[in-house]
């Protein structure tokens, strides 16, 4: 080959040794942050769609020695509910259904025996026309003292806050990772400029433009960043798969499902590419900025 791919022997620079590993670490962190954010977002979405369109009414357990009082209260509550606009259905959950709901927390086979449990009424509503929960809760409490309405909103709101916080942290990590990648590439490029000052001077003397010299550094940075980025991504994917296995074994409804959609996989795959492009542009502007100051 007559024209070498690169004229500067950048491959032998120390940057070739440290830059890919640092980039790998950066991409690893960014990838895990992204996966956390995406998973959290999906979990909130799942709970949200699962819960909207329903709310729960809780009728307190009977006082000791007042059998039948709870049944009467339940009847009053259901009647009131079904009279309310937007309510489509109201069903009392059977004891075994409640047991199934409690199982993840209390374990299978827990027997409740004579334990007084509140009665749970699952209410289906028309999601387009949500009732006035405050007014409804007040009227329910009048009909059957101690009755509580849970529209899941405060609970879901906290979950949303948590999800947003995690997304914010993830975005922060990605920004920090990008900034450190830029700093590292600037450092490596300056080092390369110093090491190869004589060769660069010769290239200039035989008529090379600054952009030509910059191109050499761009290609170098692109290759190193791509190499490091792919390694970092592979480690991140391995970590995600491992954690997903762990979650599977724990089999808890509390934990999110760790499966990514094709679009999410594509977003992850974009990470090394994005960082490689950032590295390339950084190298370019570092070289152009530094050479511009040379005579």
């Amino acid at each position, binding site marked *: 080959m007559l024209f070498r791919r690169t004229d500067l022997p950048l491959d032998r620079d120390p940057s070739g040794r440290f830059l890919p590993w640092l980039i790998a670490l950066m991409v690893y962190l960014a990838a895990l942050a992204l996966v956390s954010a995406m998973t959290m977002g999906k979990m909130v979405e799942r709970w949200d769609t699962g819960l909207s369109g329903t709310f729960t009414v809780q009728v307190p357990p009977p006082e000791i020695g007042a059998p039948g009082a709870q049944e009467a209260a339940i009847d009053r509550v259901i009647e009131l509910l079904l009279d309310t606009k937007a309510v489509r259905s109201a069903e009392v959950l059977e004891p075994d259904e409640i047991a199934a709901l409690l199982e993840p927390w209390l374990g299978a086979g827990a027997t409740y025996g004579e334990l007084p449990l509140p009665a749970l009424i699952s209410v289906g509503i028309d999601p387009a026309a949500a009732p006035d929960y405050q007014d409804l809760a007040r009227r329910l409490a009048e009909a059957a003292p101690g009755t509580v309405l849970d529209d899941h909103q405060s609970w879901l709101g906290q979950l949303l806050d948590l999800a947003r916080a995690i997304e914010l942290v993830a975005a922060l990590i990605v920004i920090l990772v990008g900034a450190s990648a830029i700093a590292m590439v600037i450092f490596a490029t300056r080092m390369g400029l110093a090491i190869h000052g004589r060769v660069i001077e010769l290239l200039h*003397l035989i008529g*090379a*433009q600054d952009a030509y010299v910059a191109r050499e550094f761009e290609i170098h940075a692109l290759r190193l960043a791509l190499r490091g980025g792919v390694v970092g991504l592979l480690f991140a994917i391995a970590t995600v798969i491992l954690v997903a296995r762990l979650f599977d074994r724990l089999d808890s409804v509390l934990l999110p499902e760790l499966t990514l959609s094709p679009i999410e996989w594509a977003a992850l795959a974009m990470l090394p590419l994005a960082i490689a492009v950032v590295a390339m542009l950084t190298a370019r502007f570092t070289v152009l900025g530094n050479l511009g100051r040379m005579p």
Partner: protein
Amino acid sequence: MIRFEDVALRYGAGPEILRQVSFHLEPGSFHFLAGSSGAGKSSLLKLMYLAQRPTSGRAHLFGRDVTTLTRGETALMRRRIGVVFQDFRLLDHLTALENVALPLKVSGQRENKVQQHVAELLAWVGLADHIHAYPPTLSGGQQQRVAIARAVVGRPSLLLADEPTGNVDDRIAVRLLYLFEELNKLGTTIVIATHNESLVSRFSYPVLSLSGGEVRMRTAPAAASAGAGGTDRGSAGQGSAGQGSAA
């Protein structure tokens, strides 16, 4: 081609290496730049290949005042100038062939278009058997010829050679000079710096003589035509009008 008017040069706060240097070199001319070691020959050549700018005075190259050139224009102008550096400045990690092809690559020429030309040029300087050798494995004389091939590969309008015969014996030195004469006949303006007065005297070319930081123009030495070693080839018409004039 090259016009210097009262050019002075100093490095940093050091002494003036060149002062009040004025001369004019016509296109197509052939000049020696003579002077003892340390006289400032390399410094004067650096001004000509734009590696240095005058501290004061005016230097015109290809009709342009060099102080007005942008970085981009400087690069383009350098492509019209071939330089044989005193220390060759070959790139050790490139083969002879790649070194010679470098100026063409830098100026954006296509690889397949220049392959033939580069190989022929290396054969022309007698290195057909060494085109894939790396400079550190070549002798000083061979490296010098690679450097010369690199300087002329872009068919420059101006060729500047800094002691191009420093590392070879007189017989080869004379042969290298014939090579420059060939180029000169094809229209290239040539300036050859040397401290070897006996070599200068074998050819009948005008001489820019540097001493004490000042330049004097000596027109073709009369003694030259009777010189030894084949001056018969290069003497015709040299020193006549248009070759150069002292300012």
